[in-house]
């Protein structure tokens, strides 16, 4: 759908005394499949959490296409086209597969989508401002009443939107290989299916930028290979930009066009898979300084 070019400028995330991210900058052009790697605790998931509004970055700027988006609430970021999956699968466990996907379609059904209009970057005193000003309240209340009336009265427009969403959801489930499992409860799906369902749900939001947090974690080589194929297909078919966190080097090297390496919250390398593989700082981060020396010596 959208372009989904991501620009990160000097991003920092400080938790009390702990600096989880410091001065991270990167450019991901629209349509790229970009890898994010680094040892455990390097700040990769924190980076995703900043991008999706789970955390509010303490420094730096985030730009999505031509819009500055840092500090926006999660649901607004989602409406602007940022969607994600989770390292530890977080499906709506007691909802069916198709319902999970339909939640992803939420803002595209009926009178929705209007939330995007409120995408104003909040100031430092946003919470206070929100409390004191009731400017948006009457309009929001009116919108709520209209939406409730639509749900109760179920006019043809709402019915049609709902049916379209169901059709889209079926298509998406088919696209990730879950056709025929629409009415299974998410919790009852096998592990690999749950991962794929998360991808389908994320796609239902019609993302410009899709963030995949370890999409192949816990998968065997065949399943991983299938996931790699799926990621490529998604990029081509849905025209999204993809940023993925990944530990399996085979996957990273196989699917990513460029890679950013994080270590202790800092960017230590960036480039094509081949470039990153040769980078001494990367080898050092993963294997320690001796490994670098040995690699330099050419000795085993």
């Amino acid at each position, binding site marked *: 759908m959208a372009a989904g070019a991501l620009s990160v400028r000097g991003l920092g995330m400080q938790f009390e005394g702990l600096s989880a991210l410091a001065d991270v900058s990167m450019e991901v052009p629209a349509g790229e499949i970009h890898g994010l790697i680094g040892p455990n605790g390097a700040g990769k998931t924190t980076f995703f959490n900043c991008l999706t*509004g789970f955390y509010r970055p303490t420094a730096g700027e985030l730009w999505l296409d031509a819009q500055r988006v840092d500090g926006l609430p999660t649901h607004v970021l989602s409406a602007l086209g940022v969607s994600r999956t*989770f390292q530890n699968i977080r499906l*709506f466990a007691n909802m069916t597969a198709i*319902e999970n996907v*339909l939640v992803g379609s939420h803002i595209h059904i*009926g009178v929705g989508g209007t939330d995007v209009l409120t995408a104003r970057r909040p100031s430092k005193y946003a919470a206070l401002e929100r409390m004191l000003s009731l400017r948006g309240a009457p309009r929001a209340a009116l919108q709520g009443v209209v939406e409730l009336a639509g749900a109760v009265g179920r006019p043809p427009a709402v019915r049609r939107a709902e049916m379209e969403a*169901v059709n889209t959801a079926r298509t998406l489930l088919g696209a990730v290989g879950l056709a025929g499992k629409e*009415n299974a409860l998410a*919790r009852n799906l*096998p592990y690999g299916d749950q991962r794929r369902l998360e991808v389908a749900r994320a796609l239902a939001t019609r993302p410009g930028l899709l963030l995949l947090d370890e999409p192949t974690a816990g998968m065997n080589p065949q399943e991983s290979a299938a996931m790699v194929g799926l990621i490529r297909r998604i990029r081509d078919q849905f025209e999204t930009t993809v940023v993925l966190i990944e530990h399996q080097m085979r996957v990273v090297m196989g699917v990513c066009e460029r890679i950013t390496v994080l270590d202790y919250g800092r960017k230590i390398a960036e480039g094509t898979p081949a470039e990153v593989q040769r980078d001494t700082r990367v080898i050092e981060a993963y294997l320690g300084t001796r490994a670098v020396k040995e690699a330099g010596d050419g000795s085993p």
Partner: protein
Amino acid sequence: MNPMRQLGDSTVGRLPGAARWPLFLALVAMLPFLLSDVWIQMLFFVGLFIVLGLGLNVVVGFAGLLDLGYVAFFAAGAYSLGIMTSPGSPFDLDMNFWLVLPLGVLIAASFGVLLGLPVLPLRGDYLAIVTLGFGEIIRLFLVNREDVTAGSQGLSAIARPEIGSFQIETFTHWFYFILIAAVIVGFIASRLRDSRIGRAWEAIREDEDVAAAMGVNKVKYKLMAFAIGASVGGLGGVLYASFIGFINPAGFSLQVSIDVIAVVIIGGMGSTPGVILGSLVLIGFPRILQFKETADFLGKFEWLRDGLNGIVAAFDTVIPGSIGRLPAASEWGRELADDTRFIIFGALLVAIMVLRPEGLVPSRRRQLEFETEDLPVPAGGAA
């Protein structure tokens, strides 16, 4: 077409879904021709708690927000009608019932939003405690602000509805009135459940952070749930105040909140048939125990009482004066309803929670949740 349909409540009977409710309602509508006034009065209260239960169900069952202060909205509705129509009200407005009905609902809804705003970031236990406090605040307000609420004196001669020259006054009239209200509320609740709003609520219940990441505006939908629940509570309050004709703060204690939440949980959270059954068991049954018919019926068991008292007397010969005698058998129902009611109900609650934790008539979904509890690979299990 709608995937929610397949998961709809399907435990009433074997009739096709579409025919089930009209048939049930037709049977219920015939009851006034079959039963005496005390029964119809009892059924009014059952209907009232069905309305309240359906409203709270939206908040607790659909959106997963545990609200223990539901009485606040019930009181808001009841006092709206009381203050605006009672001749004893400090304002002496003397308004028409039909004008106050929507006003009362609206006032209760704004109370819902008012409560919702500060508790938005709270979850689970914390939410329960704050809502509990809110219910108490409202009760204390009713007692202490005599210039607004007439305090513990209460408000009397509250307006009753008229349709043209026809006045709703007999138990039968009220029975039909509450029946219509319950049908409307039930219809609205089921429509909401099967819409994107219902899905958003459910997603928030499951994992509100992820729901937000999927584009659901948490603030909006939580407030919506509170507002809907509160307006139904307000509606119940208006109807109750008009039916009773007199209200004072004593009628709006924590007990009401507990009764409504018990109706929802015993019946089965998220399930409409569950709310109906829960209300019959928790609200209807204790009243039936107090009926004269029940006393007459139990009177036939005088021989059982004699027998039991015989056994007691035998014990008494061993340790004289240790045990009292059972009262007359005809009094058993009343005794049970008065003194022992809470013991019996406590035991019943525990029993139901142990034997059927999903409630008497669980929603299809809840049933699945409980059935599949032990599966080895739960989604999000690593969280």
